């Protein structure tokens, strides 16, 4: 029975709860058991079973008195450990936040809580969300529930690797991640689940440990497009505490999804996304995706996004620059780790030297350098100009097409430990996802097939600002056509 419960989607579970076929408590117990069984994957930084059961019972009580709070009431979810949560420690997977418990709840996790969602735990991630493999976590790497034919421990992608693995491994029905350069979509692709980065400003950043403020955006990781729509509907909305949160209406994404199809939709295929070294099977999948959309009534045309090749280097200037400043607050004075020193400066240097891992250190130093006197114009200002060009490319493209279709990643999941000594090779994982962050656009990754090794591959859609509805509709068309039914090896093995 409990295996059955963890196989449900959010919407199916919601139906069963509504029809009293299952209780939130039973649903939660099943997922807590799955989480426990999946400990070898190192998905969670912190499991919160007691709190989860308490929330589940409260949900059941509400349901009994007819006061349910919405479609997520009683639904077990996981939260990336980058969202500050009251009473549960927040680590950002960094040593430097040792012992930190926020006296506040992030807006997004508070919205989930207020909607009755049951938090089973906080998921592992790359330290401060800086990484594409979940290997930079202070708490060790997460293992992808998929092994395929490789027989090796593979990365789940990153930085929301824990959240993507949590959904793939059936330890929760949905999870929340953040996406700065692909950190939701890339791990979703590598773990065979749906991951969506909404438009910048759609979800509040308040209470999310900041990595790169102009790029960070929260979003859902789920097993279906419809579930993504449901969760997005709960976490989206203007927040007066975030100056960059948009004052736009939140549409009913799920209804929009049910109502529409893709007939007449114009899909753009950007020629610059054909990158050297991309495996043939990814190219083929991309073409198949275009065919699926065409078959569903959309028209497909080639477009050009000429500055695409500069997106990644621009990102690796802007993101570290913002991070170098955002991470200055971890100084051993008000929270987290303090490593003593003879003087104040020594205390700072020891704390930050010991508290940050190698990748965070690398990015903070790069960021410090590109902002420093004499280099600011050549690096930071230049990158922001290039960013304008990249955003303009999309703006022009969206005069002709409604969505842009690309692969999500240039490769499937790779073995843990690979690319670790070559930062640039690791950065290239985000080559297809970064442009949407630089331009603030909504993007989604949908599992679309398996490669020759039996590992999942995703297709990626990018839409106009605040047009998540179209992105979701196109994503559902891909999902319907792809009929992705792959089950991770870890889950298969448990059955």
């Amino acid at each position, binding site marked *: 029975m409990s295996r059955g419960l963890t196989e449900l989607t959010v919407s199916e579970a919601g139906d069963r709860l509504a029809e009293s076929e299952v209780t939130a408590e039973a649903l939660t117990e099943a997922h807590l058991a799955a989480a426990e069984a999946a400990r070898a994957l190192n998905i969670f930084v912190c499991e919160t079973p007691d709190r989860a059961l308490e929330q589940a019972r409260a949900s059941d009580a509400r349901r009994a008195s007819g006061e349910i709070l919405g479609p997520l009431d009683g639904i077990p979810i996981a939260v990336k450990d980058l969202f*500050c949560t009251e009473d549960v420690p927040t680590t950002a997977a960094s040593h430097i936040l040792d012992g930190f418990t926020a006296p506040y709840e992030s807006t997004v996790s508070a919205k989930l809580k207020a909607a009755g969602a049951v938090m089973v735990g906080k998921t592992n991630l790359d330290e401060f969300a800086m990484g594409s493999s979940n290997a930079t976590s202070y708490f060790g790497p997460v293992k992808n529930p998929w092994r395929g034919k490789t027989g090796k421990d593979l990365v789940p992608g990153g930085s929301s690797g824990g959240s993507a693995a949590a959904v793939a491994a059936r330890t929760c029905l949905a999870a929340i991640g953040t996406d700065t350069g692909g950190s939701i979509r890339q791990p979703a692709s590598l773990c065979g689940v749906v991951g969506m980065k909404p438009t910048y400003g759609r979800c509040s950043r308040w209470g999310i440990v900041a990595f790169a403020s102009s790029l960070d955006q929260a979003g859902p990781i789920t097993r279906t497009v419809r579930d993504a729509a449901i969760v997005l509907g709960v976490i989206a909305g203007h927040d007066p505490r*975030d*100056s960059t949160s948009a004052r736009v209406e939140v549409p009913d994404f799920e209804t929009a999804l049910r109502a529409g199809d893709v007939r007449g939709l114009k899909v753009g295929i950007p020629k610059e996304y054909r990158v050297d070294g991309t495996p043939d099977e990814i190219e083929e999948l991309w073409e198949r995706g275009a065919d699926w959309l065409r078959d569903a009534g959309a028209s497909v045309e080639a477009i050009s996004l000429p500055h695409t090749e500069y997106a990644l280097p621009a990102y690796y200037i802007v993101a570290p620059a913002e991070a*170098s*400043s955002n991470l200055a607050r971890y100084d051993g004075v008000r929270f987290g780790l303090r490593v003593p020193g003879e003087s104040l400066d020594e205390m700072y240097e020891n704390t930050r030297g010991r508290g940050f891992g190698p990748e965070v250190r690398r990015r903070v130093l790069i960021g410090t350098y590109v902002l420093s006197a004499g280099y600011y114009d050549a690096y*930071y200002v230049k990158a922001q100009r290039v960013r304008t060009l990249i955003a303009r490319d999309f703006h022009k493209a969206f005069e002709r097409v409604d969505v842009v279709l690309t692969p999500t990643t240039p490769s499937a999941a790779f073995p843990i430990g690979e690319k670790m000594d070559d930062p640039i090779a690791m950065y290239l994982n985000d080559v297809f996802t970064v442009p949407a962050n630089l331009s603030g656009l909504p993007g989604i990754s949908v599992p679309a097939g398996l490669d020759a090794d039996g590992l999942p591959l995703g297709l990626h859609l990018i839409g106009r600002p605040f047009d998540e509805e179209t992105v979701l509709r196109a994503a559902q068309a891909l999902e319907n056509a792809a009929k992705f039914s792959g089950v991770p090896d870890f889950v298969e093995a448990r059955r």
Partner: protein
Amino acid sequence: MSFAIEGEAGAWEVVIGLEVHAQVISRAKLFSGAATDFGAEPNTQVSLVDAAMPGMLPVLNHECVVQAVRTGLALDAKINPVSVFERKNYFYPDLPAGYQISQYAQPVVGEGTITLDLDDGSTREVGIERLHLEQDAGKSLHDQDPGRSFIDLNRSGVALMEIVSKPDLRSPEEAGAYLRKLRAIVRYVGACDGNMEQGSLRCDVNVSVRMEGETELRTRTEIKNVNSIRFVMQAIEYEARRQVEAYETGEVVVQETRSFDSGRGETRSMRTKEFAHDYRYFPDPDLLPLVVSADEIERLRADLPELPDVKKRRFVDELGLGPYDAGVLVAEKETADYFEAVLAKGARDPKQVSNWVTGELFRMLNMRGVGIADSPVGPENLGRLIDLVADGTITGRIAKDVFDDMAESGADPAVIVKDKGLEQITDEGAIEAAVEAIVAANPDKAGEVRAGKTKLIGWFVGQVMQATGGKANPRAVNTILLQKLRD
């Protein structure tokens, strides 16, 4: 007003620019909803944003923008429709985020001017370079514990306006006049309380010297955080002489920050590692550009109170005051308010009111060491006293006694006059009797007057006034005396 330092090689002039940090009057901080009041328990007026907890975000307090724009308008400055908040990055324990949110490349207020009122009665225009908004830091206490410093974040995030002058000032006196005028303006506008002792107005002083006739600026030093106008003037004087001496002895003047030791009257190098001050400014990605609409600028312009220069002109042109007196009256907003409050009722003579305010009132306040806002004699009562003189109820001489009495008791002047029987004697019979008594008692002196020594008449007036307790109408005394002494 020229100021020159005579060196061996010739005369040197000093070039001064001032950077004033003025704490904005607002209930809440620049980017958070924590209170700004002075003197609270440590870390009680601190929001999670001010403490830079992870994930906390700034939201701009509109009132602070309004105050900056109002101040800009009062400085006749250009208001920039778009300005940008940037991060100034450096580590210090009272700077929780590791950066200060400030404005750098695009401040909210651009170039303006300020008119200095100099001691010799002349005026001079000085350029304002810019005005921008920024956060204050917290407070570090270094003297509470031998091995540790303590941090209180109550001040962290309070809004400051940094007002930067052009290097237009040429003497310590001009610097003093600039600060007095700037303080008056921010107080008129209500944007800052101008209190230098409490630190709501702080000053960094940029000083360089050059030989008279040179057009290029030489290396400047920056004297940080000088906390009174007198100290600013002293610091400039010292620093200018130090630099001249350095040049004349062949030493170099290095660009550096210095501190002012008010005890010794000296400036001292703060010896900081220069590369450690790479602030890495960049636009704060948590905030969007600040847009101030033309409509709002015009609305704020219309709402500005009458400013000191305009008020002074009006006092001269419409009230007939002399420029000096008008200048004194408008120098502090409270003084001008007081003066105008006295004038507001009745048909009082502005010149008389001005004399009372700048004369007796100032003397009394000085003696008591209180500000005009706390004056024991309020504008209502001073007005009534002036009326009592004007309508002849009391003499001018008695009025001064009544004023002193009012300062002590706070009582209504009419009550004091009545209780003490101080009404003026206008009954000519009574005055004549007093005159006759004095003349009769001093036949010798009366004889001298009659012989032409008219200077002695004054003596007789004094005697009569004394005899009547100062209450006799002085004009009647004069007339009757002249008559009696002629007889």
